[in-house]
């Protein structure tokens, strides 16, 4: 087991992503040269066994077709298991940007199809607090795993990655960072019996109304059980309204 010091990229490194060839991996531009990254690199106090993580990511790449969202399930577990950080340490986007740009850019390109320059930059660089749509690849995976795993069990993590809509609606919002709320929404919107999520419309409406409820009743501070009760009531109301054509 070899621990490697985790590095971070400072904010000026973002300009490196103007290199379209790197974004799409064309012209043999798989990695940046170390000399290009050097001036933007800073050490952190954290370590991880990145060799093992690399082995696991390479296996995931082998097992999944390009751009398959399905790979998020195993990749999130791998990233979270191999990079053991406190939440405070994990809130440094510079570290996650470094993993995407220096160490594992091939994974980013395998996971995400190059659709546009702006879109692909967001997969290498965290542009905002929205975990699903504005966070770089490894930050998104680590944090969603962190917010869904329970005592090292990743059953919930694998579930949430079955629905991109759920990830987007839940983890792009402030309330999604409150773990009991995220788990309550998962409980209420994932049907264990049918092993599937509610329809996208129900996911949308339920989470939006939970957020509306959050303007008048405090959600943070409530337990998962209390919140599950609320979300289930909202879902039932959404579905009865839908059936009634309201």
């Amino acid at each position, binding site marked *: 087991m070899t621990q490697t010091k985790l590095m971070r990229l400072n904010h000026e490194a973002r300009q490196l992503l103007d290199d379209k060839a790197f974004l799409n991996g064309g012209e043999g531009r798989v990695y940046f040269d170390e000399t290009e990254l050097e001036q933007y690199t800073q050490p952190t106090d954290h370590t991880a066994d990145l060799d093992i993580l690399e082995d696991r990511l390479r296996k995931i790449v082998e097992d999944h077709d390009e751009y398959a969202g399905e790979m998020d399930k195993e990749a999130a577990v791998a990233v979270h298991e191999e990079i053991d950080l406190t939440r405070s340490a994990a809130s440094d986007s510079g570290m996650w940007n470094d993993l995407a740009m220096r160490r594992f850019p091939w994974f980013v390109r395998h996971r995400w199809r190059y659709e546009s320059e702006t879109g692909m930059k967001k997969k290498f660089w965290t542009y905002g607090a929205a975990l699903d749509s504005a966070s770089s690849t490894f930050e998104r995976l680590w944090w969603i795993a962190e917010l869904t795993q329970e005592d090292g069990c990743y059953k919930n993590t694998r579930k949430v990655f079955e629905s991109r809509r759920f990830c987007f609606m839940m983890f792009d919002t402030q309330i999604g960072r409150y773990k009991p709320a995220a788990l309550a929404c998962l409980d209420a919107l994932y049907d264990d019996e049918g092993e599937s999520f509610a329809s996208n419309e129900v996911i949308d409406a339920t989470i939006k109304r939970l957020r*509306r409820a959050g303007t008048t009743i405090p959600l943070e501070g409530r337990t998962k059980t209390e919140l599950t009760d609320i979300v289930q009531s909202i879902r039932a109301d959404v579905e009865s309204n839908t059936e009634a054509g309201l």
Partner: protein
Amino acid sequence: MPSESARPEDWWFKEQPPGQSHSPGLLQKKTLDRSLETFVKEVLQNINDAGLDNDSPVEVTFRLLEFDEPSEVFKNAICWDSLLEHVRAAKEEQDGPGLDDYIDYLDDGGTLRLLIAEEKNTSGIQGDEVSTEGDYAALVRDPGSSNKSGDTGGRHGLGSSVLWVASGLQTVLFNSYLDEELSGQESPRLVGRSFVPTHATSDGQWYDNEGWFGSPTGIENPDLERPESVWGDVAEGLAEELSLNRPGEAGTSTMVVGFRDPSDPSMEEQPSPAEIADTFEETTADYFWPAISRGELEVHLNMAGDVRHITDETIRDHERVAPFIACYENREGAADSLNGPGSVANIEFEYEIQSRKDSETPASGPVSLAARRAYPGEEERVGEIALFRGSGMVVQYKPGHHLGFSEKFHGVLACGNARPGMEDEPTDEDSAIDKFLAMAEPPAHDDWIGEKNDELKGTYESGCVKCIKRLKKQLLRKHLSKLLYGARESTGQSYRPSRDIVPKIARSNGRETSRSTPSLAAPFDWEVTDSTVDRNRWTFRGWIEPTINGSNRVAEWSVIVEMAAMFEDNREASKIPVDEVRIDSASSDGRVDDGRGVIKATEDSGRIWFDIRSKVFADRDPRLGDVGETKFKIVDGSITVEEVSS
């Protein structure tokens, strides 16, 4: 002259023997970048090019409608069963994802999305059904070809094919009022096209890949032998049933049936309406700010209730482009080298092109290069230069560090008809440069390229390829260097950002306003004195008055107010429709317009008390999110003042 229109009874595809050549559908499907950004760019550019020659802006409203199950009226009107019969047959013949996935998605109960692009102040789909010239031929009959002259953005005409690529059913409908009608034509004109692979229906009959939705009267016409446009009252009635009706003024409404993010043909991760609105808004602002900031284009969005406006009034609120607009707008009379943050410098330099081969045209003319020093807090697109010409669309943001510059600035290279200031008209030289660069744009209009451009080489004298390259490299580098370093460089003084930069003021919101727009006090004073939920509706009570001081007299004023439902993180969730506006002044008017409240004072009424109520909502349980924090806001207003002589 068109014959009497009749409603279409089905989608018409030409029958063919099985052994005739099979076509995969729209060939252009694979030639353009398939992304929502490209879709927005191509569609907007084509619409902007179709603008009428007057002082009014081209207005575009993108409207996204969602249906869990389309209504029977819609299905009957669009001949749904007939369309699906052909599309289901065609999906068996298509390689790769596309029709197959979309039909599976619909069969699984997926939401049908219709995207409508409604244009105003454009020419409409002009032309007859037979000739090779005109909008009809380029957009409807032969999409992918072009009818445009050399200096419009969509010269290649490929833009229209993105409409079909963004349709899960590869089907598009048009409803158009023509600016100039030919003899026998009576607007509106309604027609639909579907381009799917050559296919065989369940009875074994093979059909061509081109589908028509139109008046069957054209089938008997020996010049057509296929359906033709539906006209007049018949078209108007049909458009209403299709939710494609439009104002009776020149312009076209285009419906993409089964709209989807074209980058996700397998329908795995389709964006939500809010995400679509984000992409449309950002792309519009990023690439069309030259046209929008000049008041030539307005874009409105209503994506399943997510309403946004990108206009001359709002474009400067987009932090990503505000510095470029400030740079472009303040370049007239600016210095020729940069000073501190927010300062603008401008230079015009001579650009040599080549004359056309078929007639002598200007072989050089000035282009304008301007730069604006960035504030420390400005991070978006710092160090980039926006390249554009008269079409009003940014062709490319060129990173300055590709030219060797690491300074913090925003630049614009305004060429051709974009060069003159607001009050000036383009010269012949400007027009020549515009046409030259237009021809250098590849189909996606995202660069100026001379190499491998046979059309450019065939049209202009030799040397034209080098002209393109020289502009983007040597000339840009040389003149940008003058702007950035100017006299300081020649005198040996160095620029010291740490000393010269002053902090950005918080209220400037990322853009420099002090040079051109003096800061103004809020034009209205107002207060909500009471807000309640009564009988499942919001009521806001309060007062409002204009705050004009000095010797001027208020002649009239108006405000538009909205109610917005809020999320827990203080972001707006959705608009709550206003249903009733009551005011206490007899000389003034309170009314509801499109879910907003409007208060209009016809004379100097002073303070007006209002009582504004929302529509009734179904339930009122805060725990279920039925009712929650709601914002009352003024979204627009105007005050007319009369000068009072002393």
